[in-house]
Each structure stands twice: as structure tokens, then as C-alpha cells.
């Protein structure tokens, strides 16, 4: 009863949902520790920066390659079968999105030869340089341009199926592609002059502008489509506490979103955080600290999986403007991004938040403000907070209490042990290039 071919619609729905389901949990339980949204008080070797010994999640590699594989099948079918041509553009967008996550987390990774086991027989794919993954033909930026072209050239009548993000709206996919291009260009802006391209994207205005254009899908209130942390064991829920870093940032800004993202400490009613990476061989009273908010567990029907949003795009453009890469008013973009982000987190924007409070635009520390706002709104988003911290140094993350990495803050994720066992020859080269798979060797775009 096992089919040997499958309709694109069924596969594409899984590409979108399966990745979101798996990566949202991964991003929450592991990514949030590196971005210091939360701290873990036991089974926390990852929080102590022994990244190769994660104990809950902490293996984004498999999630990404499975998603890339099914997406590749959708892409191949769209090119081989005229009746499936509508999938080409969206599949290219997803490929770029997933590849970006992958290389941003790990650095050089198998890409051009990857996920082609069935078609090429290659089961030990070579590692590619991050520079090529971003810039070469068939890389992230090229695929995004091709995606836009494919969407524009599609003249068929067969609609896009399985699209849980945009319900088949190709225009929305084009906006997503352009927003993602903005994000990718900024990511590599330390290495390449990206101003002209950004300016033209900004000028065209064909990017995600409003909440209804967001590349998101809804989690359900209950299984099987609820956010995975809702069904995680209460024990796992109970070892995640608000981090000291988060306490400082929310308190410093007087940001009311704290009450959505966290629940106050049971013993004190305060939003108190604990330092990341404690040696778990110490007695603590968890109820003295704030825990994850009800939106992560009891009310996941209110939570979205976020591929890309209007608030993120605005804040990216705000940075571009702030850094003079595009001609625009950084403050205007910043204010718009923050307002959209409050709405995204279902919180009323306080009247003074953008006018007189500490979050009000201050050009002298514009970049810090922009990235901090992205950090807040991007909670749970697949290591994004940590990736942007590596690029910009914001917000200031705190040293962990009992580091297992000599007190140094990791700047890349190590390749999983499986690669060492199963793709040894290629791994060897990649490990050499990273000082023995060290977490302290920056990735290509990380130039400071």
C-alpha cells in the first residue's frame, strides 16, 4: 500500500507543515537557549555550551535535511511535469529559506550534492562553502530570483495545492521571496556590497508589508497540530525558565509582551529570570522564576509558525536604512516594525512605547534597538536570535554560569556526530576548516 509516487500537493503540505512542526520545537527548546530567551536548569549541557551534547532537541540538521529532501522532490516534479509547474516558484523559495537556516546555523554544509540520494546516488555529499551557498548559481540568492521569475512566468490554470501558508496565492509567494532576499542580503552585508539590490527591492515595494501577507501558519489548540511544546512532558516544561538576559531586556524596556511570552514566578508574581547554563548539581527553587507563557503550552491555538513576517521585513529594512544601504527613514520603518510585532504577539502597544520609553528610536543606538526588537518578536524562531547576535552583537547576551566551552560564546553549531560516522571523508575536510568542528570558528558572513 506504499505509493511510489506522490502528488506534489501532499508533499508540499508536509514540507511546509512538517518543517514548521519540527523546527518550532527545536527552535524553542534549543535555539532559545543560545539566544537566551530561556534558560534550562537541568539536562542543560547545551545551555552550558556543550553544543555537541544536547539533551532536548539541539539537532536542527536532520530537520532541515528532511525538509530539503521533500522540497527537492516537489521542485523536480514541478520541472519534469508541466502539470506541476506551479510548484516551481514556491519550492525554490522554500529551498532558499531552508538552505539559509542550515548554513547560518552550521556554516559550510553539504548543499549542492545534498538530498539527491535517490536521483544521483550520492549518499556522502561534499561540503560547500557558505559563500557559494549564498552566492553561486543555484544558491540562495539565485534561487530566490529564479523563484520570482518562475512565479511571474507561470501561465497555467492549475492552482498551487497544499499551501497552508498562502492558500495558493502566488503573489504572496513572490512577496515572501522578496522579503527573504532582503534578509539574505543583509545577512551577507558584511561580505558584499548589497546596497543596490536592497534599494531596488525596497523601491519595488513587493515584499511582505502587512500582517495578512505574513508567511505563517496557525498551530491548533490541540494535537496533532498544536505547537509541540504543548504536548511535551510537564518535566520538560518545568526545566525551562525565563533567562536573566530576557529579564533584563523586558524590564529595561518595560515591554508588556513579557506577559504573553512568559508567566510570572509562582512564588513572587515577578518576571524573574535565571542565569543561563547553571551547573545543574545545585539545589534551586524553580517557582522563584518566570516560566514560558501560556501561549507556548495551554493556548497554542493563538500561536503561529513564522516563516517570515511584515514586522521582520520592516525591521530588516530599518537596519538597511540605518546603515545607509537604502534610502529610507530608519525610524519610520522601525516604528512600523515594532507596531506590527506588538500586533503579532497580540499585545496592545503602549502609547509611550515608541515615543518616550527606552524603546523609542534613538539613532545613537539604532542598530541595537532594531535587533533587540527582532530578538523579542523572534522568540522561538529557529535560532534566529542567536544568528543575528552573531552578526550584530545585539542584544548583549550574558556569559553562561558554568560554561563547558571555556567561557566563550559559541558562534556556530557543530556538525552532528552522524556526519562523522556516516560522511567521514567529506566531514574530515569540513572539520579541518572549522578547527576540528569547533563552535568557536565564525561562519563566512560573520565578520567582526
Amino acid at each position, binding site marked *: 500500500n506504499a505509493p511510489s509516487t506522490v502528488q506534489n500537493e501532499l508533499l508540499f503540505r508536509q514540507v511546509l507543515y512538517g518543517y514548521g512542526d519540527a523546527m518550532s520545537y527545536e527552535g524553542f527548546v534549543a535555539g532559545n537557549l543560545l539566544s537566551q530567551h530561556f534558560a534550562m536548569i537541568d539536562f542543560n549541557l547545551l545551555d552550558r555550551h556543550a553544543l555537541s551534547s544536547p539533551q532536548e532537541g539541539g539537532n536542527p540538521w536532520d530537520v532541515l535535511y528532511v525538509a530539503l529532501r521533500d522540497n527537492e522532490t516537489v521542485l523536480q516534479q514541478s520541472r519534469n511535469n508541466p502539470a506541476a509547474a506551479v510548484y516551481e516558484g514556491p519550492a525554490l523559495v522554500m529551498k532558499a529559506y531552508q538552505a539559509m537556516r542550515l548554513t547560518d546555523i552550521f556554516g559550510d554544509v553539504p548543499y549542492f550534492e545534498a538530498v539527491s540520494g535517490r536521483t544521483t546516488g550520492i549518499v556522502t555529499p561534499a561540503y560547500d562553502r557558505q559563500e557559494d551557498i549564498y552566492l553561486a548559481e543555484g544558491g540562495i540568492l539565485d534561487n530566490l530570483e529564479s523563484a520570482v521569475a518562475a512565479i511571474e512566468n507561470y501561465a497555467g490554470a492549475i492552482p498551487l495545492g497544499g499551501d497552508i501558508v498562502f492558500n495558493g496565492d502566488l503573489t504572496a509567494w513572490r512577496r515572501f521571496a522578496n522579503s527573504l532576499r532582503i534578509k539574505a542580503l543583509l545577512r551577507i552585508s558584511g561580505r558584499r556590497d548589497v546596497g543596490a539590490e536592497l534599494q531596488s527591492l525596497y523601491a519595488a515595494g513587493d515584499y511582505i508589508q502587512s500582517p495578512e501577507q505574513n508567511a505563517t501558519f496557525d498551530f491548533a489548540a490541540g494535537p*496533532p497540530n498544536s505547537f509541540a511544546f504543548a504536548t511535551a512532558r510537564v518535566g520538560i516544561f518545568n526545566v525551562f525558565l525565563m533567562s536573566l538576559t530576557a529579564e533584563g531586556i523586558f524590564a529595561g524596556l518595560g515591554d508588556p509582551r513579557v506577559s504573553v511570552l512568559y508567566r510570572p514566578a509562582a512564588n513572587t508574581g515577578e518576571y524573574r529570570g535565571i542565569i543561563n547554563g547553571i551547573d545543574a548539581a545545585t539545589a534551586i527553587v524553580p517557582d522563584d522564576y518566570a516560566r514560558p507563557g501560556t501561549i507556548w503550552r495551554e493556548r497554542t491555538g493563538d500561536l503561529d509558525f513564522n516563516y517570515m513576517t511584515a514586522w521582520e521585513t520592516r525591521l530588516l529594512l530599518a537596519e538597511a536604512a540605518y546603515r545607509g544601504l537604502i534610502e529610507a527613514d530608519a525610524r519610520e520603518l522601525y516604528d512600523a516594525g515594532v507596531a506590527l510585532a506588538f500586533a503579532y504577539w497580540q499585545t496592545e502597544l503602549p502609547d509611550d512605547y515608541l515615543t518616550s520609553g527606552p524603546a523609542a528610536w534613538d539613532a545613537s543606538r539604532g542598530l541595537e534597538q532594531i535587533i533587540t526588537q527582532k530578538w523579542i518578536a523572534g522568540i522561538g524562531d529557529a535560532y534566529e536570535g542567536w544568528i543575528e547576535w552573531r552578526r550584530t552583537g545585539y542584544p548583549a547576551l550574558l556569559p553562561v554560569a558554568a560554561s563547558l566551552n571555556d567561557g566563550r560564546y559559541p558562534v556556530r553549531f557543530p556538525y552532528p556526530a552522524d556526519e562523522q560516522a556516516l560522511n567521514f571523508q567529506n566531514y574530515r575536510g569540513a572539520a579541518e576548516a572549522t578547527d576540528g568542528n569547533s563552535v568557536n570558528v565564525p561562519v563566512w558572513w560573520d565578520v567582526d
Partner: protein
Amino acid sequence: TVTSVDGPLTGATVYEADHPGKGTVTDSIGTFTLLIQDFPSILKINYLGYTSRSFPIDATTPLPLDVHLEAGITLDDVEVVVTALGVRRSNSTLGYSVQEVQSEELTDVQAVNFVDNLSGQVAGLRVTAGATGVGSSSQVVIRGETSFTNNNPLFVVDGIPINNNTIINRTNEEAAGFQEVDFGNGAMDVNPADVQSVSVLKGASAAALYGTRAANGVIVITTKRGGKQPGLGISFNSSLTLDRPFQLPRFQNEFGQGQGGEFAFVDGLGGGISDNITYSYGPRLDVGNQVPQFDSPVTLADGTVVRGGDVAVHGGLPIPSTPFVSQPDNVRDFYDSGTTAIHNLAISGGGADGDFRLSVTDLRSDSYIPGVNLKRKTLAGRFGFRPAERLHLDASLNYINTTSDNRPAGGYGSENINYDLTAWLGRQTDLEILRDYWQPGLEGTQQYSYNYTFFDNPYFTLLENRNGLDRDRLFGFLSARYELLDNLSLQVRSGMDYSNERRRFLRNFSSNRFPQGGYAENDVLFREINTDFLLDYTQSFGDFTLNLLAGGNRLTQLAENNQSNALTLAQPGIFRLSNAASPVVIVDQAAEKRINSLYGLARFGFRDYLFLDLTGRNDWSSALANPASADNTSFFYPSASVSFLASRLLDLPEAVSYLQLRANVAQVGNDTDPFRTSSTFVARSPYNGQPTFTEQSVLAQPNLKPEQTTTTELGADIRLLEYRLGLDFTYFTQRTENQILSLPIAQSSGYNQQIVNGGTVSSRGVEAILSLTLVVTEDFRWTSRFNFSSSRAVVDELPAGTDRFTLAYSRVYNSVNQTVYFIVEPGGEIGDIWGTGYRKTDDGRFILTNQGQFIADNTLRKIGNANPDFILGAANSFRFRNLELNLLLDWRQGGQIVSRSLSLAGVAGQLEETAYRPEAGIVVPGVVNTGTDSEPVYVDNTTAISAESYYRSYYDRNHEENNLYDASYLKLRELRLTYRLDRSALADGPLGGFQGVSVSLIGRNLYAWSEIPHFDPEQFAIQGQGIVFGVEDMTYPSARSFGLSLGLDF
């Protein structure tokens, strides 16, 4: 002429009682000639599987003598064994190694799992019992592991293959959802009471005629049948054993729950001090400490007293402190005494035109694990009928119903009670109070426990969250044999093995993994039908005899496995899919396979001392076809074997009573499972009720070729000193090429497994069976038998382009880093265990940080090998008049095992190894590098770390190196003391109506000598859908059984 119900007996032993060494053996048509030394004499005729007969012989005895033997017990002289296609042949004519186990060796001390009865009985056979108590699977491997993927021998009952699958329910390997449950292996359904004999065909040669699945050897089971002589025989056997847990972990009892020396229970959720998790690094026990605890009494406003852990009832009232005292026997006392009762009643009879045997068996085992049981009813019928002179009809039918109210979950996680009891139970925990496992007034919705974060009350788990089993199994055959000519017969036969298994998983509200309850149905269907024909032609030409067999077989197999999961329930306590509160998640699978075969066998005999067998078989397997082509589906494999009875031709020294030399070479091809030649897509969890599909994670191989195993074998069977001493020695080699492997591959390829042809493994080994009759007098007899085997399987070649690959792994949850890998490199051995550890200098000292901590070294390295260097079974039998004592010892030497119990309970501070906790901390013996990485300067570490920190890192589950044991053991496997009275002794007494009466004291799994203090060293783990040998994964204690058995023959 010696005959039996099956016709002439070839190879029966005939000798004078006073001259056992001067005997002879019947030829291919059952005749013999023996020169009698002196009259009068007593002639003895033995044939394995038949009752020996004695005849007084004097000068007046009419000749020729016609002897008819009845099926029954035998002597261990030159044996007759059941070989391929159920043909009974004398061992002396066989050019390959076959070893037979008789019914009494199987049924004296019956194990619930039939396979366990073979342990220690056969050289080259390794049996490993499963880890979840009565009803577990047992793994059996013949001649060691030589295949990368499948080492499971074929089981055949009365000529019909039966499945020995272990099919695990679907799990997601995560810390949520259902855990693995072992519902047993297929061959456990064989009922020892109905078994006449078991022949183990060890090499490919013995097995070539059974086809591809025989590459790993064949276990040929012959069931009992009725006699030839008129009259009704009734026998009744009954055994009752008391089972106790064997080898429980050894705990420390000085420190109770907590971390950093502190603990206070508030809600078991993190509201107290370290009460969210249950390490035992808390305050000292038994020194007068007073601590709020889950069982401290809390008085409600209305005066009712509840327990501290009744949190939902008292709503967070202050919990008073109570004495913090040790519970050294809490885990021991948790277990009950189990009982296993087996009753069998058999009626048999027969006459000139046919025979029958009907048997009914009832097995009830209540485990020492509370709430766990197994019930099995077996009905067996065996019928022979001769409606016409030349027509033989034969049939058997076995119906087995197996039920269990609960099969306990295995693996790491809250559904396995060892996750609580072994790994994570604060050493002060009083388990007795947990028997009342609901919070008062919240029965059915909220359990009462010592902790509510990761753990469930173990009584709640076992008594409420059950994994039920109900399996119907039917196997049997119908056959007709017609003698076309005196020397030519045609047999047509069809047999079926059918099983339908219903598994029901109940999860109550407040379960750790299912806060809103849960329910799953897993239905497993298996059906295999084999239909065959066989032409049998025999002719003699002077000194030569020729026997030709030609046949064909069609195998059709259907396997279905459907599981429906309801991950939340609407109404507590109603376990129906219709009560699901969220969409039901369905995982289903069905596979069909067909193999057509033609085969032939030619046997040549020269006089009575030289025998040659040639065989050939061609298979056509549907599993090797792909959607585009059926080119690779056909494969042929031949064999040749020769047996030379040197003692009949040559003038050997007086001491040598018998000498047989044998040699053979054989090939056997092997196909694969369905769906390995084309990629398939599988349904995943729907989104908003709309379906989603993903590609299977296994990369298919369209051009799969059959794998080829070539074996050679040399052997000798020597009997010395009038058969008092026997040595059967076999040397074998085996080479498997083009192995069909499901190899783990790098996920970056898009897949995590790949089907490939490739790799060559060669193994060599020896088997020796030493039989000793040490003392034989009128009253006393002492015999011993030693079954020794040792083999080694080396990887000669890997698939092109690979220099290292991983055969299997075993993980904690789905964590890549908490993984034991089974990796091979060229020159490596099958079973090599790889893992990680902490950094060490070249001379093996730990390199520590400046703070005195271990430093993780995540480079994978070989840390051991799972396979034993040798195994030795030793059976001793003493008989004094009517009293008989049998002892079976089982020795496994060498090999390693990674222990999760050690890792987890070590980290959690439960085991006695962690009792040493000096105030000043522990200075880890090791060095600190004061130089650079390239030019290290090592100085001795002088910095202490806390004992808690030390144990937590030393045993850390991310690193296997410190959690490894030598897996060697010596086990007292079976003990039996029997008092037996036969007919003559009973005739005058009150039991005069009985043919025989026996009463036995029996024991199984009585003791083990091993370096492993915490669990039975005989172990395997279940990971995903398969068995992983070399890993202990939160095992349940195995059973130590004592009891009584009674046998009555009317």
C-alpha cells in the same frame, strides 16, 4: 529389518547389550546384519526419536528379525536427526552438522518462551532472553552474527515454516507518545509439550533445501504423533513454578532525593527545593533529618488527612516535615512473587490405518511485575491416515491463543517503570504508599505520585496504563503421499502460518506522556502459505544406492501492521478511538511477497560408509523486482556434502568405536523485504485534517541483487571407549557477499538508511560437542555433555567508496549524541561498539579542565564488541535408581555491553557506586594540561569537584565509554531433580493403572556469576523496530524460577 510408522529406518543402531561397541547400523532400506558374539544375548536397537527396544536372542530366535520402533525417547548414541524437508536420517550419513534436542530436554523445565529452552543445549546456538519479563522476545542466533542485517534463523514445524518475527509497535523515539513494547517473538508460540524433537541445521548446506531464509540456519521442530499400535495413551503433565526477580540493581541508601544536599517537596513540579526532578543528591538519610515529603500527612480544613503528594486535593497547603529515612528494599518489595502454571493433557492412539494425537495445554503466568501476565492456550492435533495401501495422508493443526493484560513498555522513558525504579527514584521513596495511586476523589483523572514532572507512579503505569495483547495463531499442514511405485513416491503438501494480533494501549488522564489520556490500537496480521510437491525416487545398484528428490515450492506472504493513535481523550477511562479528543493519527503498512522455487537433491551411498549429497535450488522472488524490471529476481544455489564412516572401512584402534568424517560446501542466496527496490512515500500527521506525505527515510535500490552466502564445513564425529566418550568437532567458514544492507547514511543525503548490495563478511568458527558417559552401573549413571562454540566475523570489504559504516545504533530518545553505534571498518568485526568518552592522554589518563572537570571528547571510537568470544553449555545428568538430577550451565565469555541503567542511575546518584560523597569533593584522578594543545604539559589534577558533579559527568549518557561492562557470565540455567517410577514399579501399588509417574523439582535461571551488579547480564535492547544486541536499556529484572512438575502416563 527395522521399521517405524514412517517406513524403514536408515541408520538405526543395533548392538548387543554386553558389547555396545560392536554394533552396526541399518542401511537405507532398514536392514542390518550383525554377528552375535555369544548366545544367549540381548539385542538392543536404538533410534533417536523412537523408543529403544531390547530382544532376547538365542539360537532358536527366528530370523530374519523384524523390529518395529515406536516414537518415543531415545539414547544418545549415533543419532538420527530430522534434516531438511523433514526427512529422518542417521547422522552418520550426513556431511554436515546437525544437532538434535529431545523433547525431554525441552519440557523438563519449560520456559514460557520456547526459544529459551534451547539455551545451552546446542553448540553454536546463542539464545538471549528479552528484557521485559515473561512474554518477552528471545533472540536466537546460529553460528554468530554473519549478516549485517538479518541473523534470524528459520523456524520450521513439521515441514512448514513459521514466522519468528518480533514486531514492535510504532513509536516516535521521542519523549512523548507511546514507548516500545515487546509483544514477543513468533517462535515463542511453539508449545514444548507438543514437541518431539528439535533439530538445529547449522550451516547453509543443511539448509539449502529450505530456501533463502535458511542462510542463517534452520530450527526444525517435529511435533509428537500417535503410535502405530492399537490402544489409547493418555499423558498429563503439570508444572508450577514460583518466579522472583533476578538481579535487581544495587542502590546506595545514604542519601535521599535532592540536589546540592537539599530537598523539600511542595508539588513535585518545581515548587519545592529540587522537587521537579528526583536525583538522590539530597540530604543524608537516617540521621534524623526532617523533610517535607510526598507521603507526609497534610490535614485539610475539615480534618481529613491526605498525603503531601495529593496536591490537587490539598491545593498547596504546607506539607509538614517527616523523617528522611532510607528504603533499602523499596524496589525489591515492589515486585511480587510470580507464578507460572503449565498443564498439558495429551491423548494419542493409532492402529494399522492411522494414528492421532490431540493435546491441550494451558499456560498461565502471573509475573512478579505487578499487573503483568501472560495466558496461552494451545490446541494441537496431529493425524495420520492410510485410506489405501499406497496413500498416506498426514495433517497437523495448531491453534494458539495468547493474551496478556499488560506487556510492560521498554526503552528509556516514563512508560518503563525502570525509568522510575532504577534511574530516578529518590532513595527515601516509600513505594508502598504508592499502591493507592489515585488522589482521593479524583479517581480516574489524577494519579498520586512522588513527582509530577517526568515520572508516573509505577503502580499506576502497570495497573492502569496497560498494553494489552490478544493473539490468535494457527499453523498446520495437509499432505498426501502416494507411492507410485515401490521406490517412487509423490508428496503434495500445503501449510499455513496465520496470526492476527490485537494490541491495545490504554493511557489514563494525568499520565506524564498523555496528560489528557490516550489510546492506540495496533493490529498485526501475518499470513504465509507454502505449497510444495516432492518426488522421491530410490534405487540400488549393487554397492551403490541412489536417492533422488525433486520438488517445487510456492511461498506467498502477507504482512500488515496498522496502528491508530488517539493522543488525547474526551472522556477519562473510555478507551475507544471514538473517544478521541483530537484527530486520530493512523500509521499503516502492508506488504506482500511471493517466492517460487524448484529444487532437487541427489544422494549417493556406497556400501555403508560413504555418502554424497548434491543439492540445487532456484528461487524467483518478487521482492527483487522493481517497477520496471524483474531481471534480478531469479537466483540459483547449490551444495555438496560428503560423509565417510571411517570406522566401518578402516581398522582403527580398539578404543575407537566410531569415526565419521564429513565435509561440505554450500551456497545460499538471499532476497530481501518488500519495498526495497523503489522509493515510497508515507503518510504523516495531517494538517487541519488534510493529508501530508513524506518520502520514506530509506533510500531504495532499484537494481538489488540477491546476496550470496558460501559456507564450508569440516567435521569429525569420534566415539571412543565403547561410546563412553564422544567428540563431535566442526570447523566452518562462511562468506557472505553482496550483502543486502540497510545502512545508516548521512542525513545530508536526504535519507538516513540506504539499501545497498555490498560488503563482504567472512566468519570462521568451531563447534565442539563433547559427550561423556562418566559412570554407568546398574544403579548409577552420570553423563555430561558440553556444547562449545566460538566464531568471529570479520568485515573484508565495504561497499565501494565507503571506509566506515554504521550497521545499527541505539539511542536515548532520538538524541544523536546519546547513541551507541555499531560501526564496521575493513578488518573490523561484526558487533564492534562505538561511542564517545572523555578526553584522555595517550596512556589513558583523563585530561581535566583547570576546574578539575572532565572534558568531552566527541570523537567516535571503538569501545568494545558485543559478541562473545565463546559460549559453552554444559549439561550434566546424574541418575541414581529412580532419582535423576540434571544441571545445565551456560557460560558466555567475552564481549561488552553498554548499560543505560548504569548511565542513568549513576548520573542520578541512585547506585551504590555513587555512595562515596566526601564533603571535600572528589579529586578526579587525571591530569591538567598546563601547556598548549600542540605541546601539552600534563600535571596531576589537584582540584576537587563535588561528588554530585563527579558522578553526573562520569556516567553522563552522552558518553558510553564509562558505561560499559564486560558481558561475560556463567549461569546456572536449569536444575531438575526427578523421581520417576515406571510401569513395572507401579504395577503392584495403588498407582497400578499408570504407565509412568514422575515428580520433579525444577529451577530456571537460578544464578549468574558476572561482573555486572545491577541486572541480568543476558540482555538485548529494542530500538525502533529491531533488536540491538550489546546494549542494556532500562531492563526489567529477569525471572528466577523454582517449582514442581508432575508427569502422569496412563
